[in-house]
């Protein structure tokens, strides 16, 4: 089998039934093993893009996961390989107990009992929630819910982990715990976030969206060095600058890789 990218999106457009143009000509490819942050203001289209990665929405254009185009035939395999963790853990934890939630995916895959149990144990271990099997979701703290939600996807042993706003509503300790969990997982990651501070430790590449388009796709250091583009699209520079490599040029706006030569790639203010 020859080389396939983990995610390959070409010219994807999506219009919601009410006429909202949520995605316009998205081109994005992510290699296996990469860690990518997807940033942008509210309403940029980030969540809509995520829903296309496992076929929950199907727009115009092409989405391939490890070379497989998304169609009715492949969709089961694709949903196993791309694990999506949604923003609100209360949406993801719908079963009576944590065990049932984490077992939901493996059971739908038709795995035998021993294998389901092994995977549930392993997934909960990976997020530091071993021993919580019998607990009900509403007995968990918010940070625990977030981690349990990740376990519900890990138990399907996905190759790509997609997280929508994982830091939202978490206190600093919860964020730190989640960060450690995410760092320990050997998967390709796409993380939707507003928070560049935590992104710095996790991702080396930043894709920025606004108005349904990708407006920048560059190494993290370059994006951080360009205060103008951050401000323009409603993002803040992380409070501490210690982590910014001293070599980063503060005026690299011109170096950002243009994605759509047609519209000039990065917009100039």
């Amino acid at each position, binding site marked *: 089998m020859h080389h396939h990218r983990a995610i390959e999106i070409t010219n994807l457009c999506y219009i919601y039934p009410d006429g909202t143009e949520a995605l316009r000509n998205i081109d994005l490819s992510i290699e296996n093993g990469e860690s990518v942050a997807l940033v942008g203001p509210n309403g940029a289209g980030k969540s809509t893009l995520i*829903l296309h990665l*496992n076929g*929950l929405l199907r727009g115009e254009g092409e989405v391939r996961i490890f070379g497989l185009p998304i169609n009715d035939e492949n969709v*089961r395999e694709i*949903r*196993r390989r791309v*694990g*999506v963790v*949604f923003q*609100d853990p*209360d*949406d*993801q934890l*719908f*079963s*009576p*107990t944590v065990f*049932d939630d984490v*077992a*939901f*995916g493996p*059971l*739908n*895959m*038709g795995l035998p*009992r021993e294998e*389901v*149990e092994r995977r549930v144990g392993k997934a909960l271990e990976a997020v530091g929630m071993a021993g919580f099997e*019998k607990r*009900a*979701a*509403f007995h968990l703290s918010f940070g625990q819910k977030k981690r349990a939600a990740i376990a*519900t*996807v890990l138990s*399907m042993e996905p190759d790509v982990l997609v997280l929508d706003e994982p830091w939202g509503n978490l206190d600093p300790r919860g964020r730190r715990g989640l960060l450690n969990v995410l760092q320990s997982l050997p998967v390709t990651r796409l993380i939707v976030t507003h928070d560049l501070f935590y992104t710095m430790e996790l991702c080396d590449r930043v894709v920025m969206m606004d108005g349904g388009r990708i407006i920048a796709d560059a190494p993290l250091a370059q994006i951080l060095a360009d205060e103008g583009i951050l401000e323009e699209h409603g993002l803040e520079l992380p409070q501490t600058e210690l982590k910014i490599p001293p070599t980063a040029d503060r005026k690299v706006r011109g170096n950002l890789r243009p994605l759509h030569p047609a519209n000039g790639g990065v917009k100039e203010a």
Partner: protein
Amino acid sequence: MRHSYLDSFSNLDSPIHRLEARAKIILFFALVVVCVTTPAKAYPAFAGYLLVLLVLLFLSRLPLKHVFKRALVVVPFVLMVAAFIPFLKTGVIGGGYNLGGMTISQSGLLVLWNVVVKSSVGVLSMILLSSTTPFDGLLKGFERLKVPHIFTTIAAFMYRYSFVLVDEAMRMKQARDSRNFKGRWIWDAKVIGHMIGNLFMRSYERGERVYLAMLARGYDGRSRTLEGERISTADVFFVITVMTLVVLVRILGSRGMFL
């Protein structure tokens, strides 16, 4: 926010807690059916049922205060019945009311006794069942007793999201009250109407998002569960013993053999 959970105290350990969920469901439902079908005049039988329940309660080590508080749920219903029944015409159960004369008929009193004692046994049984079995265990028990999946799933979702909904309602109420809302009649009904509509929309959207989360993990409309633990011989033995006892109580009690 603090919720009062349906299955509080279900994590204690006692012989009753350790019984398999199916065994407990069968036991308590059978007990209720036997009790409800007992003629109201078989007074000793009811004493027998209550005695059996008290022994089970004692074995379960549930705090009496909790059981008592839960049992108060029936009181309003009993009072409602109590308010009307004594005025029933003699010999006509469920017949016309004699509001003018205020006569308290004997058959009315019998109906009242019937309602009070049977609802007490029913409520006590259900409290024992729900306080000694975690909610998910109950659901799985019903599932394995071949209750259609659609019912157990609806019950599971209702239970799971009622807490989320109550939290949302509380937050909305706080937001409203912190803007000095005072419930003053008609024009405030509009505010409350908006709140209910808002809650409905939120639940609807939540439902859609939960469904997406299910699809994302390979859901295709069929539900699959793991095989549960087996019913042990001890469970079967316990249920049979108690049920034999209850049936004996009923037969002997109806014949007045205890008197």
